[in-house]
C-alpha cells in the first residue's frame, strides 16, 4: 500500500511538473490561471496522501478543504479583474 501511494505521489509530482511549464512559459495570463487551478487540484491530492503517511488524515483534510475553497476564490477574483480591466 505504501509503495503504491509513493508511486502515485511521484506520478502526480510529474504531472505538476508538466503543468508548471504552462505556468512559467505559457503565453498570456489565461493559460497561467488555468494551469494554476490545475496545480491546485493536484497538490490537494498530494497533501492528503502525505496525511496518510503521517496517520493524521483528518487534519490534512482540513487543510485541503481550505486550499480548494481559496483556490476557487482566487480564480474568481482574477477573472473578475480581467473582466473589468481587460
Amino acid at each position: 500500500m505504501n509503495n503504491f501511494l509513493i508511486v502515485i505521489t511521484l506520478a502526480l509530482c510529474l504531472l505538476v511538473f508538466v503543468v508548471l511549464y504552462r505556468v512559467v512559459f505559457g503565453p498570456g495570463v489565461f493559460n497561467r490561471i488555468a494551469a494554476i487551478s490545475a496545480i491546485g487540484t493536484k497538490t490537494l491530492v498530494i497533501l492528503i496522501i502525505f496525511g496518510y503517511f503521517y496517520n493524521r488524515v483528518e487534519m490534512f483534510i482540513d487543510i485541503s478543504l481550505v486550499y480548494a475553497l481559496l483556490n476557487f476564490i482566487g480564480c474568481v477574483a482574477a477573472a473578475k479583474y480581467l473582466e473589468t480591466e481587460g
Partner: protein
Amino acid sequence: MTIPFDLIIQIFVIICAIAAITVRDLLSAVMILGAYSFFMCLMWAQMGAVDVAFTEASVSAGIGTILFIAALMKTTRRTKD
C-alpha cells in the same frame, strides 16, 4: 518516507520564485505567487508542521492573492520597461 519529496517540492518552489520575479505581467506574477505559496504549504505539511501549513494556505494563497489583485486594480498591469 524513502523518497525525498521535500527535494522535489523545493525544485517546484524555486522554479515558481524565479518565474514570479522574471515575468513581465503583474497579474501573472500574482498568480504565480499563489502557486508558490501552494508549494510552500505542501512543504510545511511534508515536514509535519500542520499548523504552519494551514496558515500558509489560508493567508498567503487565499487572502494574499485577493488583496494583491485588489491593489492591482489601482495601478496598471504591464511594467513600463
